[in-house]
């Protein structure tokens, strides 16, 4: 296990370097001059030239690349073109809000999704099952921003249950609608996956044996069926966490949530290369690490998977 972990960490290094290369190249071929944008619609060519020189945009591409890599290694991602803030600071400032949102959505999606999945499996082909699966299908198929706007319309404007949008200085009630919006998809997916995985294991021999041994229905469900159904569920949780990092872009825009997604979209429209590069790099790193953790957790859940 420890050796496997070490091997995976070593393997991650070239992937990480590849990510750095792609991130850099991606925004070196882009048309549009950020220095020009900073100067405004009516800009003075002398100032624009000076800004370009300050940012090193007038240096050859390979020089820019090596200085980017060299700085990145020392955790120096440069400063934002738009407002001169240190890029790593700018990212870290947004991490708490996004993390809260993602964790809340994962918990919500996980708890509700898995519970609904179990109930649907145990009560297969009942009204409850159909209701849950219809809900899941709608949850998977509706566009995110649309769900968000409809939730605002109903729960804030019509019912008045939610006091407002934005971060609300961290009060939990402000987290509810964005978390529900972001959780819709994982919730629906998990409900379906849990249901089908449960049904599959329930049909298997050892469950029948367990039942025959006289174990209660509940004990069978939880101890055997659920435990075995967890593998696909963990996989979905892993891929959905990654998908969520994209989903936050839309959710944060709808709910004025001050997180990474907003930072990214604003940086895109402003050609704020240091922010775009820094953020993609940051998230890719998080993703590589998260993947590593998921891979290692397989070993804990499924003894059938062996690693050399």
């Amino acid at each position, binding site marked *: 296990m420890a050796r496997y972990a070490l091997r995976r960490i070593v393997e991650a290094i070239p992937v990480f370097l590849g990510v750095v290369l792609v991130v850099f190249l991606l925004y070196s071929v882009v*048309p*549009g*001059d*950020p220095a*020009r*944008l*900073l*100067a*405004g*619609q*009516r*800009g*003075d*060519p*002398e*100032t*624009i030239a*000076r*800004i370009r020189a*300050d940012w090193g945009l007038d240096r050859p591409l390979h020089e820019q690349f090596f200085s980017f890599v060299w700085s990145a290694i020392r955790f120096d991602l440069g*400063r934002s073109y*738009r*407002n*001169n*803030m240190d890029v790593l600071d*700018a990212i870290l*400032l*947004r991490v708490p*809000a996004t993390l809260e949102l993602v964790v809340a959505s994962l918990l919500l999606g996980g708890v509700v999704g898995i519970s609904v999945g179990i109930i649907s499996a145990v009560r297969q082909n009942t009204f409850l099952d159909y209701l849950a699966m219809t809900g899941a299908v709608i949850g998977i198929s509706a566009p995110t921003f649309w769900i968000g*706007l409809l939730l*605002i*319309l109903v729960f*804030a*404007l019509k019912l*008045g249950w939610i*006091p*407002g*949008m*934005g*971060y609300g200085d961290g009060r939990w009630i402000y987290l509810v609608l964005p978390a529900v919006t972001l959780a819709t998809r994982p919730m629906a997916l998990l409900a379906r996956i849990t249901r089908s995985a449960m049904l599959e294991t329930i049909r298997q021999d050892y469950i029948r044996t367990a039942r025959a041994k006289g174990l209660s229905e509940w004990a069978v469900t939880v101890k055997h069926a659920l435990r075995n159904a967890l593998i696909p569920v963990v996989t979905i949780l892993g891929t959905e966490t990654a998908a969520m990092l994209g989903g936050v872009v839309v959710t944060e*825009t*709808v*709910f*004025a949530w*001050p*997180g990474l997604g*907003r*930072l990214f*979209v*604003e940086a895109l*429209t*402003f*050609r704020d290369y240091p922010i775009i590069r820094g953020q993609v790099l940051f998230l890719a790193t998080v993703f590589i690490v998260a993947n590593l953790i998921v891979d290692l957790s397989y070993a804990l859940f499924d003894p059938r998977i062996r690693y050399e």
Partner: protein
Amino acid sequence: MLRRTTRLLLALALVAAMSGFAAAQAPKYGGIWYDALPSNPPHLDPVFSTDTTSAEVEYQIFETLLEYAPDGTLQPLLAESYEVSEDGLTFTFHLRRGVHFHATTEGGTPTANGGREVTAHDWVWTFNYITDPKTNSPRAYFVDMIKGYEEYRNGEADHLAGVRALDDYTLQIEITYPFAPFVQVLAYNTFSVLPREDVEKWGTADFNFHPVGTGPFKFEEWRQDDVIRLSRNENYWMKDEDGNQLPYLDGIEFRIIPGGGATEWAEYQLGNIYATRVDDPYYRQVTAGKETEIRPGVRTVETQHGVFWEGPQPGVYYYGFNVEKITDKRVRQALNYAINREALINLVINGRALPATGILPPSIPGFNPDLEGYTYNPAKARELLAEAGYGPDNPLELTLQYNTDPGHQRIAEAIQAQLKAVGVNLSLREVEWGTHLDTTERGEVPFFRLGWVADYLDADNFLYVLLHSDNIGPEGNYSRFNNPTFDMLTKAARLSTDEEERIRLYREAEKIAVEEAPWLFIYFYTDHNLVKPFVRNYDLPAFGQYSNKFRNVWLDL
């Protein structure tokens, strides 16, 4: 000289009278003004900002020598009065005494300057700092007519020679050629006095996140993409007409709500912000009410939603032709005849703009009410197109480039349909702002959307900046319009100090531009804001909501 001072005094009296009229009730102290910003402002440091979102916050923290009253007249702010020499080259400002920089900021932390009084030496330092080539302010060139600017920029001099402190309360600025709108430029928010100690403490990059000025509100907190909080400056120099200390509010909270639109509207409905921009979908709701007159020239409507304010904004919305690519004047004129501005404005933006007859909007001195411009005449449009060689068998194919924005898209789709009616096939090309500016200024785009809102209320800021051949490219003339007579007239007006003469020259120049049609003239802007009914002393400024100052506003809660 005396004339100008009297004018300023008169304006001041007028403003005082007007605010007295609005304040029938004694003002109440306290409360927070909750407002919204459409994006995370790039700057809170006026030296670097070029956008309106940044300006909206900066106007509360920083102050200039002169400012614009809501009706557009220039009035004293940190300068009590000023004189101009006979030759129009030397400006002497008599500074207000008792103006102090913020003593505390960010939760009561003392500032580096310690709350000391502002003197003429601070202004000298500030002008030197802004124009310092190392500072690299994108707005430094606004004052490139100050004596010694070139020498300072290219390193021949170590300071800006034209700005001097005669004593602690007298500032003198010398310029190299008579430039009539110079004092107006000084009302632009980049030219606010800065405390040297605090700028040096944080450094040029980080002062942006710890701004300190003299304004009615002090900086407290900036949570990126979330909220900007300001608090009352208890040492503010200004008092209301009854001698009450300003400002009335305890503070301001700017909530950052992206894109405006639906989310901002919901927040206003929920009472979380006290003012909002009104997107077209909600316009009919907020204007179906009692029309009241709070100030002449500004429309106010009371509804259950609050008080809706709407007034002209000194700006013009147009589609520019690159005259080097669309060389046939008849084609440019034909397109101007082909669009029905009134119908477009009514259908797409709820009638909240004025059809553009030319280049100068109504609130700019020199606006020509007799100028007819182009009126909807599809027959004439077809005729001109036919003369230029286009017809049903050979339709004119044109691509409009505009920057991504739902509002621009709505206009573009409507114009596309209107041009179709005279047989012009317009395709739309949507690009983001950076690419749009880049490609347009290099002259690669034959037909492009742009808008212009005044930096200062003078025809120079439109005619010279946007159409003089000196400014072809990024400096403003994206149409690459090059007409010697027009150049001569606008240059002469720039150098003249006789106001009537200038207006005559500008009107003549504008006529040429309308005839030559380097633009598809579309509309003159208006601006608006919807505020809660308990807000008092609110007014819509001449430049639009973004330039509002909340030092007088109070809440009747």
